[in-house]
């Protein structure tokens, strides 16, 4: 954030932070691939070691980036383990340092594991969920987690949701951003039904490997484009979800967009309403205008926070769709583009508005008990 040393901002932030801070996007990971062994059957251990991950080639975009393992330079633990894989270090550098009462984990491996085909993908997502539970959620009561699934294998995904959904430590179901089809496609509805039945939102995090070009206009050349371009897929999913009628069919369905920003959603809501006015004969069963669904069924994590030229533009954008209770704070620890809780939000937001973003919105979304209870 450009405004980093403004004393007034820091005072206001301190006031809102003292209340409570919930971090809605933390990335833990395996310390090594061998750490997955206890959670895989002998067959899949062998496969994992001798064949390994397929469907990962697109990530070669990483080669021209400048951040090792996409991490903050200071997030490499003294233990020598990879960033985000050492619970003690994460505790002290993130949870204790910022006074975080709850942190929601999105395991790093999900972005490759969930794209693996067939039974291998099923075995990997199951194993990584078991790893998260045993080595992160049970030892650290402040942590919650997403359930990793293979979105393009609905049957396996539902099995996983039903296996873990009743455990209050799992607070949402995680889909990667890029799948085989836009999210309104009916192949995904059984997953949404299972999540809604378990009372869990569907989170969508940047990442995934779909086999399609990373833009509607073809392949990019640079990582800069990949990173700036993720918002295109979020927009495609939003249009697809809203127009598909899934929210009429599954009214409890809640969608949490992680790491995608929010400001694109406002002009998109206007665009969808306008087009719906002209083309409603194509979606005769849709009960409301598109913006109605966007306003009610979507949440957005703040990192990477929007940085307009003036703080007022930020407020105007939030106000334009009345999204004040739909933004939830996230740091994206341990990644290089970490948003520091005391600096990320723009100047001039009221303490009340900040409190909602820092904790109240996430608490109500995830139904988290008061921090004192942990």
């Amino acid at each position, binding site marked *: 954030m450009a405004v980093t040393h403004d004393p007034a901002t820091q005072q206001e932030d301190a006031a809102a932070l003292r209340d409570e801070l919930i971090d809605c996007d933390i990335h833990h990971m395996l310390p090594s691939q061998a750490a997955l062994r206890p959670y895989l059957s002998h067959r899949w251990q062998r496969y994992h070691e001798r064949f390994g991950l397929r469907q990962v080639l697109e990530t070669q975009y990483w080669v021209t980036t400048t951040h090792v393992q996409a991490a903050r330079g200071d997030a490499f633990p003294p233990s020598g383990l990879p960033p985000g894989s050492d619970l003690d270090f994460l505790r002290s550098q993130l949870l204790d340092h910022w006074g975080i009462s709850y942190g929601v984990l999105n395991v790093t491996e999900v972005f490759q594991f969930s794209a693996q085909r067939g039974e291998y993908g099923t075995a990997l997502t199951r194993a990584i969920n078991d790893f998260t539970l045993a080595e992160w959620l049970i030892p650290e009561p402040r942590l919650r987690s997403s359930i990793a699934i293979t979105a393009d294998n609905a049957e396996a995904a539902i099995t996983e949701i039903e296996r873990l959904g009743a455990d209050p430590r799992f607070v949402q179901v995680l889909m990667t951003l890029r799948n085989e089809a836009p999210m309104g496609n009916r192949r995904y509805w059984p997953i949404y039904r299972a999540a809604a039945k378990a009372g869990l939102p569907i989170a969508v995090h940047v990442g995934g490997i779909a086999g*399609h070009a990373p*833009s*509607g206009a*073809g392949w990019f*050349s640079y990582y800069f484009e990949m990173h700036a371009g993720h918002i295109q897929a979020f927009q495609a999913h939003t249009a697809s979800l809203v127009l598909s009628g899934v929210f009429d069919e599954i009214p409890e369905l809640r969608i949490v967009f992680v790491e995608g920003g929010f400001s694109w959603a406002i002009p998109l809501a206007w665009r969808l309403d306008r087009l719906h006015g002209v*083309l409603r004969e194509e979606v005769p069963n849709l009960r409301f205008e598109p913006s109605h669904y966007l306003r009610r069924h979507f949440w957005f994590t703040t990192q990477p926070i929007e940085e307009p030229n003036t703080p007022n533009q930020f407020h105007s954008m939030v106000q334009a769709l009345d999204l004040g209770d739909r933004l939830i704070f996230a740091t994206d620890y341990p990644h290089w583009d970490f948003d520091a809780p005391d600096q990320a939000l723009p100047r001039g937001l009221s303490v009340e508005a900040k409190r909602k973003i820092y904790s109240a919105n996430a608490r109500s979304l995830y139904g988290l008990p008061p921090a004192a209870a942990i």
Partner: protein
Amino acid sequence: MSELGSPVIDCDVHCEVPNVGALMPYLSRHWETRLTENAWTGPAGVAHSYPSPVAGEPIDTLEKLRESAPLADLERTILTCYYAVEMIRHPDLTKELASAVNQWLKSEWLDQDPQLLATLVVPVDYPQEAAQEIRKWTRADGFVQVLLPVVSQRTYGNRSYFPIYEAAQERGFVVALHFGGVSGGPPTPTGWPDLYLEESAGMSHVFQGQVLSLVAEGVFQEFPRLRFSLLESGVTWLPSLFWRLDKMWKSYRREIPWVQTAPSSILRERIRATVQPFDAPPDAQLAMNFVEEMELEDLLLYASDRPHVHGCDPTPMLALLEPDRRERILAGNARAWYGLE
């Protein structure tokens, strides 16, 4: 016909090739024979991009063009004829069709009314041939820009397209990215949409991908006089994209060192976007506030996009703007952009 009290340059008006027969005088004997034998009726991509609920009444005569003008005091009209030549993969046919459309535009429209200007059609996936086509024409013919359908096989910043930009810059043409296009691939990063509505709404993110690509690949540095118009793109997504590009550029400029200033400052100089459709709150006052607060007025070009149906009318919003700003959007910006007297 509503009045806004100042001259108007309409930067996006669609004339339509009435049937393939209209192009036959401009095609070689070979293709005239082949297309006639096959009873071909034209590329399917036009109807794909504009199905009947949004197509409107086709403008295929000068009379229909004049009758359809929504505003009085029309100073200039820039015609765009989208003919979906990009969906013809045969290198000679796509090239000949593009050339035929340009000749048809010249003799049936530009030569008939000196107030008209037009957009060149090119075989976009054959950039060398496209550049040859561009060099056949000059500003004196009435052409002011080159049409690239926004849905493309590769993002338009890609170096393979540079011959097009070199020729356009040399001739003083703007490059116009326009709604629509047929690439053969899905028009989203995550697969095929089910609905036209979805695809049409999603076209704004395809524009975003193209703008992003032009910035990242250094097109604006490589071609320092080249400018891009976004036609039928929507405009209210621009601020959000500017914020994101500027933010990512701060972090990743080492990867794209030729981008030496914030992307938004480059784009504010080098792109313009047309006001139809205008995706905004239905309340004209709120829409105007958005334009002012997000500092969009210098980026906007007036366009009716007739005959397409968009379900919105930017006129009430424009009427609320102070006269000087309104005048710029209606004509001043376009005069400067296209170098019109």
